[in-house]
């Protein structure tokens, strides 16, 4: 078995008010995994992320990054290697030009100026916003700000990138842009954790899904396993992905053969329909 990149063991955390937000969370995350973290509001996803990045200090439990247990001394290592893209871009953007903003992380890593400039250009090119370099963030739109916040983390070259509800408050075009970036980052072997309420997105993008409910992980497996398990869905108040419903209905009505090749996008469904129909092609209306 390969060594997990991030190992979280029996993590407990409660905020100042005394309400426990995390009650014993244990999870192993492996290099290059694409993980969707799902669960209702207040189930502990964001708290878990902040603990994983070392901003919040757990009451109990330990976190190891690449086999090293994190303590006060090597906390910086954890922050350097685990980047968070926050939900609200306005809570993340701190500098008054895009360049200074994207350079903020690398500057904190105490890199030489040349290297910082190089990384900023690289990250802005990656997100396709090099033109915005000299602009102040307060004249950017929501989608543009989101790109800047992602560039922030790309410039830090974190191994693990955490996205806290990235698709919230984005228009369809920007959401698509974001998904393209996620696919691109995935191809480059980055480990990603994304919290989302969009089950359709989780279903088609993720390789693994972790379900949070009231401060605990109640399920951990492939999205297919989880979304087929009605008990878990009910407990975590989750909806089933549309494509899963459509496929099961088609199978139930004997319109396609049950091949266990679950389609996750309309495109995949189309291919499936073209290949696995019960009836000869001539008798079917054009799709």
């Amino acid at each position, binding site marked *: 078995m390969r060594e997990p990149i991030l190992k979280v063991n029996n993590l407990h955390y409660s905020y100042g008010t005394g309400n426990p937000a995390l009650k014993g969370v244990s999870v192993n995350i492996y290099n290059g995994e694409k993980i969707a973290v799902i669960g209702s509001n207040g189930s502990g996803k964001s708290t878990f992320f*902040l603990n994983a*990045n070392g*901003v919040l200090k757990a009451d109990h439990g330990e976190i190891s990054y690449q086999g090293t247990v994190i303590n006060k001394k090597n906390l*910086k290592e954890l*922050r*350097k290697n685990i*980047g*968070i893209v*926050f939900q*609200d871009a*306005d*809570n*993340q*953007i*701190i*500098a*008054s*030009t895009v*360049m*200074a903003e*994207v*350079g*903020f*992380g*690398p*500057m*904190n*890593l105490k890199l030489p*100026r040349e290297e*910082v*400039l190089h990384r*900023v250009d690289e990250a802005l090119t990656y997100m396709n916003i090099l033109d915005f370099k*000299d*602009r*102040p*963030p*307060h*004249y*950017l*739109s929501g989608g*543009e700000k989101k790109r800047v916040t992602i560039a*922030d*983390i790309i410039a*830090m070259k974190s191994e693990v990138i955490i996205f806290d509800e990235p698709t919230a408050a984005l228009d369809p075009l920007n959401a698509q842009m974001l998904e393209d970036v996620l696919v691109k980052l995935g191809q480059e072997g980055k480990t990603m954790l994304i919290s989302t309420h969009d089950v359709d997105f989780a279903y088609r993008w993720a390789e693994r899904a972790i379900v949070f409910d009231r401060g605990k992980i109640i399920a951990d497996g492939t999205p297919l396993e989880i979304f087929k398990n009605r008990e878990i869905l009910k407990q975590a108040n989750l909806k089933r992905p549309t494509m899963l419903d459509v496929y099961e209905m088609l199978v139930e009505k004997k319109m396609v053969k049950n091949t266990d090749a679950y389609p996750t996008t309309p495109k995949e469904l189309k291919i499936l329909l073209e290949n696995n129909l019960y009836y000869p092609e001539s008798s079917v209306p054009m799709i």
Partner: protein
Amino acid sequence: MENSSAKRLDFVRTNEKSDNSHHHYKHHHQIGHKHGEGSAIDYYAYASKIRGWNPSFKVAFSVLTLLLCIVLNNPLVSLAVIVSMAYLTVVKGGLPLGAYLSVLMIPLTFIILGTVAIGIDFSRQPIGQFNLYLGFGYLYTSIAKLKEMVFLMMKVFGAISAMIMMTLSTPSSEIIGVLRKAHVPKLIIELMNLIYRYIFILLDVFNNMRNSADSRQGYCDFKTSCQTFGNVASNMLVLSLKKANAYYTAMEARGYEGDLVFLEDEKPFQISQVIYAVGFMLFLLLLWYVTK
């Protein structure tokens, strides 16, 4: 810049909310003060064509011009400064003349109000070269006094236009960078940076709150308006504390360890600009020497 122009329109729209809304469209490029002029100035600075000039040069140039304008105390020098600063801002910087005058209108109002008291005086006796009987006394003045008033006005106006040339061509973040290089204490620099960024966030938050209160009849009469204002203000305080927390978290997540250092663009000095600037200063001195 499509997005920015939309933003600019937004300023105008929100500004006019408090005015009577009959002249919605006529206000656009009218000379005069509007609420939220601060953010308009910020926008002009980013749009300026001379933004690419080295910020230290611009700051030093405008401060020296201001000093010369005040120290030389010569109406022709003041006039030269006013004209050349307008030339730099409007022609070189590409700012529309209407917008420039609109920005100048705020200090101009203060200058006129302040200098009138020097030029015109009040007395019970009919004295002075010119006087105006008001029934209970006389407003009086003289050519010399009027001249003094106009010269003072020009001096102040020249000094202000030198400063405005700087603010309309240099974004605040760059001015802060210049101050940092001038060894202003780090704490002040960090505060300035954070406050500058925060102004826009709070303005946004405030606009949203005000609009939502407005849509629920929160400003229907004077008493309700006062109450709403208080509620909005206290809510702003709570929200800014919350936001400050969220900010700190986000900064820590990116490795912040107590030192706020930003990456600054380095804009090269252009020797030709320095030569022009020195030439301009010499011209001002010469003008003063010839006409003194």
